[in-house]
């Protein structure tokens, strides 16, 4: 009996040692891939940051108002953010390649899925950036036009325009990435519908007077103001 137990243990030990010996090179390979990947990701991060800085990406973002938004959200500068994104994409790619080398059945195919996911992620990021830029352009243009036209509450108006464009861009980006697509779509539709319905009810119930005033302001029957009397030329 004791001998049987001993043989079983010996067999298990032998199997364990064999498996370990077989696995060890793959672990080492994985570790090498992860470490080399990390180094490459660091280099890619540095190159991205340098190239974008030299190309004046920061100034472009500043001009489009993206830099201001990043600062408000306590995020790093646009060049740093882009470099960090590149770092993580590259390193996660290497990390998954390393995991793939281990040969665990449950983790097989992760690299392929990641390779399919990265382009969608990049397109999503591009949509988000374009959305940011367009939202800021629309915000600034609306605010300036509203202030110069003496439209009441220009900040609310321009903020609403920016918010709507950002929500739209975020929804489009999430749809592109296809992360929990149904949930995102449903959540967006419910939230957007709820907000619009809420606004419509609130405005209808409590804002009749405001609506009248706004319409009076937009389509006035009034004498020219002091501004109109000025002879600028």
């Amino acid at each position, binding site marked *: 009996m004791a001998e049987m137990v001993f043989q079983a243990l010996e067999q298990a030990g032998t199997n364990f040692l064999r498996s370990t010996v077989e696995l060890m090179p793959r672990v080492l390979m994985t570790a090498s891939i992860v470490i080399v990947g990390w180094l490459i990701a660091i280099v890619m991060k540095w190159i991205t940051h340098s190239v974008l800085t030299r190309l004046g990406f920061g*100034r472009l973002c500043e*001009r489009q108002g993206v830099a201001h938004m990043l600062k408000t959200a306590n995020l790093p500068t646009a060049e740093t953010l882009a470099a960090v994104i590149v770092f993580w994409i590259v390193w996660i790619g290497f990390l998954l390649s390393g995991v793939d080398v281990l040969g665990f059945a449950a983790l097989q195919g992760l690299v392929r899925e990641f390779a399919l996911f990265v382009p969608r992620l990049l397109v999503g990021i591009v949509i988000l950036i374009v959305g940011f830029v367009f939202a800021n352009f629309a915000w600034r243009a609306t605010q*300036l*036009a509203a202030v*110069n036209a003496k439209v009441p509450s220009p900040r609310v108006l321009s903020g609403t325009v920016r918010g709507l464009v950002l929500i739209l861009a975020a929804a489009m980006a999430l749809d592109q990435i296809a992360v929990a697509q149904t949930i995102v779509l449903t959540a967006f539709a419910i939230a957007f519908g709820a907000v619009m319905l809420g606004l419509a009810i609130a405005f209808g119930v409590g804002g009749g007077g405001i609506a009248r005033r706004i319409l009076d302001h937009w389509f006035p029957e009034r004498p020219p103001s*002091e*501004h109109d*009397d*000025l*002879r600028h030329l």
Partner: protein
Amino acid sequence: MADDSLVSDDLLRTLVGVGHVDLLVGIPTLNHAGTISDVVKAVEASFRTYFPRQRTALINSDAGSTDDTMALVQNCCLDQARTVTASSGLRTTHRISTPYHGTLGKTNAVRLIFSSADLLQANGVVVLDPDVANITPEWVAALAAPLRDRHVDFVAPVYRRQVAEGHLVTQLLRPLIRATYGWRVREPLASEFGCSGRFAAHCAEQESWGSHDVQNAVHLWLTGTALAGSFSVAQTELGTHQLVPSAPQQPLADLFRQVVTSAFAMIDEHAGYWLGKTEVKDVPMVGAPVAAEAPDEIVPPDGARILESFDQDVKNLEEILRILLTKDTFAALTSAAADPSRPGLPGALWATTVGEFLVAYHHNVMRRDHIAQALLPLYMARAGTFLHEHANSSPEAAEAALESLCVHFEQVKTRVVDRWTQPAVR
């Protein structure tokens, strides 16, 4: 050499028939049937009275009038009273009325006049604006005589302005152009001017005509080109400047955006000329002032009412102004806007603000028409401040205040030059 595509074959034939002229008067028009006859009569009377021995021609560059403007140019005659006072010319005076093609607007009309002047080898060119109600023969003489007698290249007018008019010129363009270019030119945006054939030919050759900045404010561009080029510039007093009531008026927001972006673009383009200039010189006044009837007094709008929105406008534009202005200037602006004891935008702060907007424009920190749009509420505050302070002042006191504003702009120039070549740092 004149642009061939601009001058039609018919016009070319006409110009060849006219031959060489000493003085060409150009009038850009678009549906000016109501006023064009008076302008043409004034020009004809001027030719007969002041230039009887000169070879003269009048060219009407029309943007496609649907009324009788072009026919009136060809057919209107000097009335009895003027025929008596004006002596007969010794030479034939030619009248040309021609449509032009391409983008509508005064720019292409002026360009066609310059191209025609180049082909006619005109010694002098005078351009008049048919929207002005009080053009007299003496205006043409005042603008043209210095070209002939003193060989001046560009004659800018000087108008007698009331406190309640011309704020875009007096509060912004005059001090800005004076401080940057270093010349005390009073009317950089005037639509009447005289210029030599040499200057007209130089301008006609330029590639800039098609740019938005020239299209939007061609008269400003001509003034800047004359000041920054090697051209002799003079000024002449024309008296008052009264626009006809029916003159088309652009919405202020559009007008301001166009004029300011054009002014900033021109200053940016001529940076090589003015960055090193430290002194400000007088532009010589030539000729006797044109006698003019006292104009109807314009009742100034209430400056305090214009200033009511200043504080709110600054608050509304806070994020944008923070990008365009330095911290100190933004703080001073906020403080001035919020100060109930002394409302308004003082001249020194206005000069600093405009200087920083100009630098922001140069460094392209924001879409450029947004920069001009952001300046409009501040300009309104400055105009309101001036009206509030000088609505009841004597013309001399108002003039002294405008001179003081110009000096503030000159003082700001050093800081503008310092920041011009630095990267956009706030």
